[in-house]
């Protein structure tokens, strides 16, 4: 047939992108509940991962905020134990000697008055000490440890000579004292002390939270305090902190440097954070498992969708859809499904993070990489889950597909 050579060349038309999306959404529109449920599986996985990353980031942002407010240049020198296991004592001169180290900016001290127990009143049995400790405190303590007063006032040159006490946050709660007032009195070492102030929690010196802080002179005169400091708080120039740290023990107690423990409280906080980050990694893994389960759900939905829609596939083939266009349709459906789940999951995860952060008074932080990574993961999952069903759909013989009742 000579006319054959003159026939125009046949070529399948390309579908416009909007048509690809709208045809990909056919299955979702006709079975909204199923689409919702399988998208929900993805959403839960992504939400878990975004929330875990978000909460952990918010916590570390909170810590950074705390540390930058409190400073990381605090070194704590505390009396340890002697070789014989007894409680060591630091010399009276420890404070002034440390002050002479060049880069040291400030020094303050407290001393544990172990014998003086704290009670709400004289009626409380002696054994019920409530785990509180009495400290004799220097007047310049607060700025050095970064503590602030919640109620009342800090000790001053007058009140340090009299039975006046400032309670740590935990101690105040245990004693049931909400605010400083002349009527609020506690019994320390058998002497009535008036509560003149209550502190906020002190993150860099947590031992003070359960402490009852009294003046150095009054402790000596009324509580049989020997005057030896037990903990020295030292602020030093940040760049030379390590060199200060190395000489602190020898300076504080030249006779027995081994009886002195030197620590950097901000390191402890950071280490705590690192521990919780290891836990974050674990939770992230759990979120990942949830995501994979969600992906299996999408794959399952797609396989069923292809089985159910064989007549539709046959019809589309008869209308001129190429194998590639059928494949694209089901891949697009799978991608839409998981993208919806991913977007929902990011929203839920962000909501949880913001809610948690606001409740915990932390700055809410949702890292962009977590959001981008989550969405990317859903697209990969959608593609992987949809690939096999899509290929199966495209390989269906049109006549068999049409013959399906």
């Amino acid at each position: 047939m000579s006319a054959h050579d003159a026939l125009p060349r046949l070529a399948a038309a390309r579908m416009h992108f909007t048509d690809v999306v709208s045809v990909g959404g056919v299955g979702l529109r006709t079975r909204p509940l199923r689409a919702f449920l399988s998208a929900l599986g993805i959403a839960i996985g992504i939400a878990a991962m975004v929330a875990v990353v978000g909460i952990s980031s918010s916590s570390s942002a909170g810590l950074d905020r705390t540390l930058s407010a409190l400073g990381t240049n605090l070194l704590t020198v505390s009396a340890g134990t002697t070789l014989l296991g007894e409680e060591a004592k630091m010399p009276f001169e420890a404070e002034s000697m440390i002050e002479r180290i060049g880069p040291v900016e400030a020094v303050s001290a407290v001393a544990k008055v172990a014998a003086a127990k704290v009670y709400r009143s004289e009626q409380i049995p002696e054994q019920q000490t409530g785990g509180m400790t009495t400290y004799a405190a220097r007047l310049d303590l607060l700025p050095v440890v970064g503590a602030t007063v919640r109620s009342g006032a800090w000790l001053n040159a007058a009140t340090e000579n009299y039975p006046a006490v400032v309670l740590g946050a935990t101690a105040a709660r245990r004693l049931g004292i909400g605010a400083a007032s002349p009527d609020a009195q506690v019994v320390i070492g058998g002497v009535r002390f008036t509560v003149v102030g209550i502190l906020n929690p002190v993150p860099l010196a947590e031992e003070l939270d359960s402490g009852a802080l009294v003046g150095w002179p009054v402790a000596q005169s009324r509580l049989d305090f020997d005057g030896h400091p037990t903990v020295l708080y030292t602020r030093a120039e940040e760049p030379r902190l390590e060199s200060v740290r190395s000489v602190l023990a020898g300076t504080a107690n030249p006779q027995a440097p081994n009886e002195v423990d030197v620590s950097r409280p901000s390191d402890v906080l950071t280490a705590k954070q690192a521990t919780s980050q290891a836990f974050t990694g674990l939770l992230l893994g759990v979120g990942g498992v949830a995501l994979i389960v969600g992906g299996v759900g999408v794959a399952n939905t797609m396989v069923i969708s292809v089985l159910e829609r064989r007549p539709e596939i046959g019809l589309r083939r008869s209308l001129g859809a190429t194998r590639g266009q059928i494949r694209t349709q089901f891949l697009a459906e799978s991608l839409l499904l998981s993208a919806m789940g991913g977007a929902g999951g990011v929203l839920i995860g962000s909501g949880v993070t913001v809610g948690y952060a606001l409740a915990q008074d932390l700055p809410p932080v949702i890292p962009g990489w977590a959001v981008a990574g989550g969405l990317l993961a859903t697209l990969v999952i959608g593609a992987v889950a949809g690939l096999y069903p899509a290929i199966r759909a495209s390989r269906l013989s049109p006549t068999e597909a049409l013959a399906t009742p």
Partner: protein
Amino acid sequence: MTHPMISLRNVSRTYPGGVTALAGVSLDIAHGELVAIVGPSGSGKSTMLNTIGTLDRPTGGTVRIDGYDVAELSDSQLSALRATRIGFVFQHFHLAAKVPAVDNVADGLLYTGMRKAERRRRAAAALKRVGLGHRLDHEPHELSGGERQRVAIARAVAGEPPLVLADEPTGALDSASGAGVMELLRELNAAGTTIVIITHDREIAAGLPRQVHMRDGRITADSAAPRELASEAAR
């Protein structure tokens, strides 16, 4: 016309397992014909329609549609042939549920590369042509069987293909609706479309200009055979 609309030469189709649905069929259908293919079930008439519609490839022989040799075309070229040259009408309509008639018809043009607005415009025109201009926004469940088949016919002809293949188009309809659908197909043919109708209903077949009878995968009678053979001899 330099070539017939449909040209089958010694076409056979054997399914895996040894079932022979077509056993060497030769048939020419010219542009503008209205042909009934009649036969009992299992006679191979559906396989022949699928082969003509390029949904199925023969295992032997040559199929030419509008001059194109089906065996030489790739899947994507065959799809293009279906999208532009062939309209299908099925016994069970194959309409998408919960989708308005106009969109069901417009979907028939999805694979032609037309923009959505153009598809909908043509769909509305095709629905008017089949007498459903007042039912554009009705969903399939709001239409009678006869109306649904009219929607399906509108979908088949919306792209103005030169060839329409109808597989038992009245099989699921009562006789009054069936007569209406046949009347519509006759009108489309009068406007120039080549139409091939599969039916087991001899009465319907008798009302059409040409009947091809089939049995056991072979053509047993063709009311236009002498002319076809003559043209074959002349070539």
